């Protein structure tokens, strides 16, 4: 059906080898999709010149301000005409997948069919931010494509200075380490900010990611502005019988070298009769021992989440990890979830009003300081927020007594709560 297939000697070299080849896939599509034939032609040029040939522009759908990444070719001939006119436009539509990226084959098949109808047939599963990326459509096609997929149940993801599509790990759906209902948190947060996703008007992008434990399979601490990480407050659950079995199977030496001495807080010891002793007040909930002895150990039962704010990659001041702003938030009751939502709302609102243009929330905190940020969003300071206290004496502490009293008051409250419960 495609008018012509261009020669792609360089790209052809990417068809050999054991890994699935995207080139083979593109060629398959090019048979029926001229746009992809053009894209292959242009890509071959890139491989030859070592240059990119796309530029941005503006393409959207009615009612939304973002979610589509427009691409127009810049590869022109001497007359200023596109060298590959079929690939003059090659826009990407970002759609939000089900939390955890689970699919019934029926849905995937329907998605393929609808996309094949309106677009190129090229789908990236998934973008680094977690979107279904439907890659290759003309500006003319986007509205109809969106309408059909939107009716089907899909919504557009974020782009530009907006809240972005979120991500959550497989977690409770299949992972024994999960300390929270990742997909519920994920959907609650994202679906609360749909306006900020669809109508970009923040100072810059804002990402949510949810990992069910400190293994952080979603890279949330670095790659999101607001990371929710499952954790627990009470003692690690130990099945000493299984500890025994582990040591019997793997050996004492192995257990000591791979579990005991690898605990970052020196919280573990193995007794002479192969019982595991854990100093839970020292344990930093790093997950290592639980990872290695997953049958014998499990996170405690008083579970909840920690919130870290401010992760991002390189631009402007270099990569940042998010930092702890809430060390523990239980997520049991409806009110608990409401509190999580309120916290997110406070953070996004404060970011919206106080960040400079193109400044991420982490950079803003860097600029104004964590204490002021915490106060602004109504969170209490806690030693869990720091690696260590200040070493530099450059600080004004006129109000020391008042601040100290705040802490004491909270301690009294906490003690009172304990007395009641």
């Amino acid at each position, binding site marked *: 059906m495609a008018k012509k297939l261009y020669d792609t000697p360089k790209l052809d070299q*990417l068809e050999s080898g054991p890994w699935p080849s995207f080139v083979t896939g593109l060629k398959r*599509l090019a048979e029926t999709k001229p746009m992809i034939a053009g894209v292959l032609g242009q890509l071959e040029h890139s491989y030859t010149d070592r240059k990119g040939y796309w530029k941005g522009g503006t393409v959207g759908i009615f*009612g939304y301000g973002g979610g589509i990444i427009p691409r127009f070719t810049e590869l022109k001939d001497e007359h200023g005409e596109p060298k590959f006119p079929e690939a003059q436009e090659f826009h990407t539509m970002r759609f939000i997948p089900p939390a955890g990226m689970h699919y019934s084959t029926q849905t*995937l098949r329907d998605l393929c069919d609808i996309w094949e109808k309106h677009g190129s047939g090229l789908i990236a599963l998934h973008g*680094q931010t977690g979107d279904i990326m439907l890659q290759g459509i003309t500006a003319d096609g986007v509205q109809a494509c969106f309408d059909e997929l939107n009716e089907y149940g899909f919504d*557009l993801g974020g782009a530009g200075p907006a809240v972005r599509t979120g991500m959550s790990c497989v977690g409770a759906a299949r992972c024994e380490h999960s300390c929270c209902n990742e997909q519920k948190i994920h959907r609650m947060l994202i679906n609360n900010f749909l*306006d900020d996703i669809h109508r970009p008007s923040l100072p810059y992008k804002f990402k949510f990611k949810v990992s069910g434990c400190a293994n952080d399979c979603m890279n949330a601490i670095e790659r999101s502005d607001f990371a929710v990480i499952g954790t627990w407050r009470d003692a690690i659950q130990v099945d000493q019988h299984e500890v025994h079995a582990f040591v019997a199977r793997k050996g004492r030496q192995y257990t000591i070298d791979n579990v005991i001495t690898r605990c970052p807080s020196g919280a573990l010891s193995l007794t002479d009769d192969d019982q595991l002793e854990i100093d839970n007040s020292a344990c930093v909930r790093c997950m290592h021992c639980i990872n*290695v002895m997953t049958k014998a150990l499990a996170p405690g039962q008083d579970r909840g989440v920690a919130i870290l704010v401010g992760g991002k990659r390189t631009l402007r001041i270099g990569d940042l990890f998010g930092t702890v702003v809430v060390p523990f938030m239980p997520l049991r009751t409806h009110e608990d979830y409401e509190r999580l939502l309120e916290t997110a709302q406070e953070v996004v609102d404060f970011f919206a009003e106080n960040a400079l243009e193109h400044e991420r929330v982490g950079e803003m905190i860097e600029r104004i300081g964590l204490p002021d940020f915490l106060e602004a969003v109504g969170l209490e300071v806690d030693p869990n927020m720091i690696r260590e206290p200040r070493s530099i004496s450059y600080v004004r502490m006129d109000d020391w007594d008042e601040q100290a009293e705040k802490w004491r008051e909270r301690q009294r409250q906490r003690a009172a709560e304990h007395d009641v419960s």
Partner: protein
Amino acid sequence: MAEAATPTQPRRPIESGTPDPFPHLHPTLRRNFGQWQYHDRPRPGVLHHVAHSGEEVWTVRAGTQRQMDVYTIRSLCDIADQYADGYMRFTIRSNVEITVAEAHKVEPLIGALQQAGFPVGGTGPSVTMISHTQGWLHCDIPATDASGVVKSLMDELHEEFIQERMPNRVHITTSCCQINCGGQGDIAINIQHTKPPKIQHDQVANVCERPSVVARCPVAAIRPAVVDGKPSLEVDERKCVACGACFPPCPPMQINDPEHSKLAIWVGGNHSNARGVPSFHKMVVAGLPNNPPRWPEVAEHVKKILYAYRDHARDYERVGEWIERIGWVRFFELTDLPFTRHHIEHWHGSRAKLNASAHLRF
């Protein structure tokens, strides 16, 4: 999913956001949601999870090219339909995971995936799929490709994907410009420009909002200027760190260069909190040529580092932990890589990266 709405022109979007995953979960996963007890890996590429209820599932993980044509996706659907009740998921690294509730289906499922060209692996202490970005295929600012780099490297590392013979999992990332949409990596391959942008002065006035371009530069090297009578921008080339941050907001600030946009390799990035706290990757080699279609110099260096790690690290040590234990002196020795002034950081707060102690290794 949502009910079909009567079409009107212009139609108002249904702001449905993130879909509920429950309808998409394999029934055994649905039933045991939040009730998993433990898992093990009967073989590379297979995760075996056991629920407190006693129910078990086997998940087979396989690599994909991420940038998939609909035919590829449908072939995955066919396999999932035939062996796995019609469900699958994708990992954050674009691997596909297909779950079955019966042990005897595992081998046939693996066979079908391999048959269809999807390598089974990527679990446990293996080299899993490389995090994938856009590159020349779609991005407007790339200095290299992503799909081709990933394909080339995964071809080279295929054996390490299908086997579990690393000390711990290896997460490789790539990024096709210095913005770095890929994450931190145990090994990261990133573009590193070496020359200041070449400015197409005649286009600046039309395309760029000058103050916001000026504001983007991390070292304040850009100032407004008038060139050939037109408002343009000027770069202080001694200050410029060739980061390319000015390029996205102002395409006439051409930073990409076939010759001078090089590749650098970074090691020791780690997002997880297991044992140590998350850590950023650190640069170990730069100046590698941007050499499509197969970037052999990159593969060569990645393998040198990877195999030094495999041969010398202890179990559970991620790349960064291994180097922290043996020290950087020995890392450069073992990998036979040159140590230069450029390895020494000089940025705000970089003093924390200097050796302010008498801890020394010889």
